[in-house]
């Protein structure tokens, strides 16, 4: 069979012009905002030894790793499925001598085998942040505040953030054997109370009803905390609940009550979460990112250091940008400059405009059609008189005479 050179691997994509601009805008805006809050960027390698790449992954995620072998040693290497664990390793090694807490941010892609028919992506672009070395609620709250203000900076002020707590579920499930735990997790993910009842058929009545009620523990914070308080009967479950309530109250104090819902039955995402976990959605329900507290992950690489973080899903953000908010007006370039000098082009460029100078012989009709097809709103046609240009607007075709300074002034005034 002849291979088709235009075919692309399942789950991969290309970003053209406007989408690429949106991607860069999002990554750049999130990055600069995180920098302004003192997060420092780290860049980690795209693949890892298999032993490291699997740290913190559940079996299902492990099965989706893309693996190959290292030439010399024959060791198995995997494309990273998660950047947080790489950041955790850096904290445990390169950054060990730095004062805690570390505030770290990253932008990059993770890779997971895309299963057919599930709409999954092979390459997932993320921008994220981690606070490593602070166990208190202040760090969790700072992560949420950073999420909220980054969203504000990109123009997504409508969103909904769901908070859960891995420690609470863990405490409620204490004493269940491992295979039951896995089944319970699968049922909780679906909020399938019927299935939970079946799995727990032989469990003591009180324990059974406690675990089943996890599936109902979602909604407004105050209400959920009240219901959860009734089933929190151990030190661990009480302290987990208290921890989440503190975070919630701090966020409520910051005016975020309407945007936050609590879901104490949520048990998804990476296996390494130990405390609060977060799931972000756009107003129309597009997943925008996940995160949480992972106090036992850094320890896997050496020192025992608590940490919390969050990663934005850039593709979700791009979709939300297109659907939920009016993205900033986009065009391919600003001006096609025909018959101008190198100095003219430089002047426009240093004023901040994107300027295309056609290559080779030019025909005005061709330039007009080019500008239209490439979303370039303006054409400047020079050469007839020193310092004077015909300014043609691509959309309407209207023409006026002006000088360069005049054009720049008018361009920025509108």
């Amino acid at each position, binding site marked *: 069979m002849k291979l088709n050179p235009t075919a692309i691997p399942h789950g991969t994509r290309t970003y053209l012009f406007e989408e690429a601009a949106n991607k860069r805008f999002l990554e750049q805006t999130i990055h600069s905002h995180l920098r302004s809050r003192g997060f420092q960027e780290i860049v980690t390698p795209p693949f890892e030894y298999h032993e490291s790449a699997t740290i913190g992954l559940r079996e299902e995620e492990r099965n989706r790793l893309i693996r190959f072998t290292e030439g010399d040693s024959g060791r198995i290497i995997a494309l990273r499925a998660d950047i947080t664990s790489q950041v955790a390793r850096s904290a445990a090694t390169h950054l060990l001598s730095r004062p805690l807490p570390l505030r770290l941010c990253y932008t990059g892609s993770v890779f997971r085998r895309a299963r057919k028919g599930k709409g999954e992506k092979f390459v997932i672009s993320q921008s994220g942040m981690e606070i490593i070395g602070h166990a208190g609620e202040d760090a969790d709250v700072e992560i949420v505040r950073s999420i909220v203000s980054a969203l504000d900076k990109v123009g997504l002020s409508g969103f909904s953030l769901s908070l859960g707590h891995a420690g609470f579920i863990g405490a409620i499930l204490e004493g269940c054997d491992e295979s039951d735990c896995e089944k319970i997790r699968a049922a909780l993910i679906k909020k399938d109370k019927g299935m939970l009842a079946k799995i727990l058929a032989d469990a003591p009545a009180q324990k059974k009803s406690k675990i089943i009620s996890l599936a109902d523990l979602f909604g407004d914070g105050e209400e959920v905390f009240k219901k959860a308080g009734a089933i929190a009967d151990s030190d661990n479950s009480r302290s987990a609940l208290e921890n989440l309530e503190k975070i919630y109250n701090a966020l409520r104090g910051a005016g975020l009550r309407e945007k936050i819902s609590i879901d104490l039955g949520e048990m998804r995402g990476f296996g390494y979460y130990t405390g609060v976990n977060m799931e972000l*959605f756009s107003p*129309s329900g597009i997943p925008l990112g996940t995160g949480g507290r992972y106090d036992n992950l850094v320890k896997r690489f050496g020192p025992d250091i608590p940490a919390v973080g969050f990663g934005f899903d850039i593709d979700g953000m791009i979709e939300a940008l297109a659907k939920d908010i009016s993205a900033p007006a986009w065009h391919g370039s600003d001006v096609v400059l025909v018959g101008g000098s190198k100095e003219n082009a430089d002047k426009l460029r240093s004023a901040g405009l994107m300027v295309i100078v056609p290559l080779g012989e030019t025909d005005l009709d061709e330039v007009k059609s080019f500008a239209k097809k490439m979303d370039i709103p303006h054409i400047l046609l020079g050469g007839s008189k020193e310092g004077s240009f015909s300014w043609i607007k691509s959309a309407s075709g209207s023409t006026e005479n002006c000088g360069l300074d005049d054009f720049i002034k008018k361009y920025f005034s509108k």
Partner: protein
Amino acid sequence: MRNSKITVAIPKGRNLKPTVELFKRAGIDFSPALTNDRKLIFDDEKAGITGIIVRDTDIPVYVEGGAVDIGVSGKDQLDEQEKNIYEMLDLGYGYCRLVLCEPASLKENDDPSRWTNIRVASKFTNLTTKYFQARGIHVEIIKLYGSIEIAPLVGLSERVVDLVSTGATLKANGLVEVETIMDVTARLVVNRASLKTKHKAISSLIKAMEESLSKNPIKE
């Protein structure tokens, strides 16, 4: 279609009538859907809820994609498609079973514990694969979209995996049941983000249904 209103996907076919009854009990009137089989969108303006009528196999897709907030789907399709959605209520109706069947003549001398390699015709490729894989049996699946029972008669496969409710179709085609793979009922499914963003409206709807069903199950 998504805003503060709730949208619901209602299945065509066998589960249509009990589903209309289910929503009626929660105070939502989709009864015009029972008499008008060309129209596919129904509004209960008073309740602020829109219903769309779609093929039952498509409902998990609509719900996962957020095209609707809520849907009613058979457990068979949910497990076959493995969508990332909430399955919040077993509605009790729409009962049937997913079974492995073979011709009566084959069954006489067949010992399933000795199978290592079998050929099965089915619509349910994922469930069938998983079922046999878990038992260490290699299964070659012949994907069909309908009239599954005919496959053994024409020699396409020795066995079939299909839904059975009364067993009449099986019998008419000379097939007998060998093993039940799963019991199936209809489930109330909910989009993940909808449950977070519209939890008040959705929770109260589910609660009304749950209470009504526990007192008085819906019969077909």
